[in-house]
């Protein structure tokens, strides 16, 4: 029984910059089922974080719909939005700048409960804080320390505890592990996994590291320069990447294994500027297969195999 919890339709977010309109997110569509994880993958600057922020209305979208449980978030009043924030939360990439350095661990975790008046009694609230700390595996003796006294992994746990403090159903995880060492990274990934099972959470999992989402997501959407270029179940995507960019991305991941060394696809150049992009395939400049049509027309995201969407003129079929 799959129930769509969030659906994004034709979402656009443009920024005004001195040099022109920056198309950070340009007309993307996807949906997520309850209790599932959608991995959002792409290179630096392709618009992943912006997508996450727009969904939480930390930024206002330029255009499109964000339908959460049947209601368009963009049309909610301030109060309705505040109500909704109890359900949808975000975990940030940088565990250093995402925690207020002037607040102790308990104050940070307590803040959402206090602000939303979920628990008014001070002691009860405190019990809840301790409960949350236990949940994310933070030692209780750290309760009154400040973030700067802690390492990245622990800080990230604080961020997670804060995100869980409300009646959270849906979390945007914006590269929650990319600033961490591998061994710590694995700890956090496991924790997020456990929490998802325990609390029936839905995640959007943003990352630039395909190997991380592979392990983590049910579906994966690949972004390139503000556009979705491919979208499929992780299974499909890894076994049968269709878009040339996805293929290159997959092949570029260094594998820590002596066996199955894969042939690398080395792309030319680097991701180009998202300011005033031309109306063509945005990957055309770097694509090894690009033809004239790629440089002239923008490909649509089409379902090439059931459940497998690709935006490419060449590999449509």
């Amino acid at each position, binding site marked *: 029984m799959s129930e769509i919890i969030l659906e994004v339709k034709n979402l656009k977010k443009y920024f005004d910059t001195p040099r022109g309109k920056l198309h950070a997110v340009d007309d993307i569509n996807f949906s997520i089922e309850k209790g599932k994880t959608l991995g959002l993958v792409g290179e*630096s600057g392709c618009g992943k974080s912006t997508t996450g922020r727009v969904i939480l209305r930390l930024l206002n979208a330029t255009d499109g719909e964000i339908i959460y449980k049947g209601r368009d978030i963009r049309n909610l009043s301030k109060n309705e939005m505040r109500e909704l924030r109890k359900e949808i939360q975000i975990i940030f990439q940088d565990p250093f700048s995402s925690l207020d350095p002037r607040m102790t661990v308990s104050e940070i975790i307590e803040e959402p409960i206090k602000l939303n008046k979920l628990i008014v009694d001070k002691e009860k609230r405190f019990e809840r804080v301790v409960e949350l700390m236990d949940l994310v595996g933070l030692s209780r003796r750290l309760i009154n320390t400040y973030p700067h006294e802690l390492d990245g992994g622990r800080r990230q746990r604080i961020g997670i505890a804060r995100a869980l403090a409300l009646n959270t159903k849906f979390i945007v995880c914006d590269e929650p592990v990319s600033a961490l060492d591998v061994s*710590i990274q694995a700890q956090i990934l496991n924790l997020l996994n456990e929490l998802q099972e325990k609390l029936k959470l839905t995640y959007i999992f943003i990352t630039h590291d395909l190997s991380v989402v*592979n*392990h983590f997501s049910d579906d994966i959407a690949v972004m390139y320069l503000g556009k979705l270029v491919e979208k499929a179940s992780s299974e499909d995507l890894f076994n049968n990447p269709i878009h040339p960019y996805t293929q290159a991305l997959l092949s570029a991941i260094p594998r820590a294994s*002596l066996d199955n060394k894969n042939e690398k696809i080395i792309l030319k150049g680097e991701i180009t500027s998202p300011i005033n992009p031309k109306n063509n395939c945005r990957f055309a400049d770097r694509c090894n297969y690009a033809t004239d049509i790629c440089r002239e027309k923008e490909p649509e995201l089409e379902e090439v195999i059931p459940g497998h969407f690709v935006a490419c003129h060449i590999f449509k079929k």
Partner: protein
Amino acid sequence: MILNNNILNIEDLVIRYVTEDGIVEAVNGVNIKIEKGKTLGLVGETGAGKTTTALSILKLIPDPPGEVVKGNILLDNIDIMKANESKMEKIRGEVVSMIFQDPMTALNPVITVGDQIAEAIFIHQKVTKKEANNKAKEMLEMVGIPGNRLNEYPHQFSGGMKQRVVIAIALSCSPKLLIADEPTTALDVTIQAQVLELMRELKKKFQMSMLMITHDLGVVVEVCDDVAIMYAGRIIEQGTLEDIFRSTKHPYTEGLFNSIPNIEDRKAKLKPIRGLMSDPYDLPKGCAFCDRCDYQMEICKTKKPEKVYFSDTHFVECHLYNENKDFKLNNGRK
């Protein structure tokens, strides 16, 4: 001085940082050998002492607070410990050069890219400014950047291009040893692939030896011949790629492998190492890893493990093999 076939030979290196908050024991008796033409991967967590070790080879440990307590470094049979500053200036760039982690900050923002490359050439080779410039242009083209961008400033380059420039600077005087300190960590995967590819090519071309610092075992596979695993300022396991990947000996190394999400087997559960690396201000008396180790024994708490050799190339520092060299790791089960 014994001449040998090693480009780099570090023995029993101890380095610490004396700060207001205490003494950081950053490097605690490191031994590293790199054979000529080989690439050694130095792998370890944040704070393990990788950069410190690398800097000590160039004698660039900031002093204060850094302090080389003891140890020997032979670089191309030159005793670094005894070399004075002017000798070091000769050595740097010509015998050994280094690439730093973050290409965004490794280039001087107010000097043109060309001048930054030419500078090293001018210093070390008896050439005119003009020849140095020409050579710089060649280098730039060699790392895949059009030569006519010689007079541009770093901010006009993208991250990947900057890292290429940094590589061009490092290679401009064909050093015998290249130290690369996490050269691709700050880059996107597709760019990382480009840069690694370039480095592989150039290494072949220049017949260089290389010390590749990274925390990514994947990168190690791509470019290294040998691997040294560093933990809390010590090399706890070293061997060829085969040794480390196929017959992992140290529980920490095993932990590292288990922490990496496996792209082939997505159902495999991650089995991270517990806890954190010990506080470098206050290292335990025994094995530094013992707190996090699933195979922990009594002796681990009190006694530092000694090296145990399995072959000429492969050794480990772990009490598990004191009595039984054939002990097999089994994912944490004792």
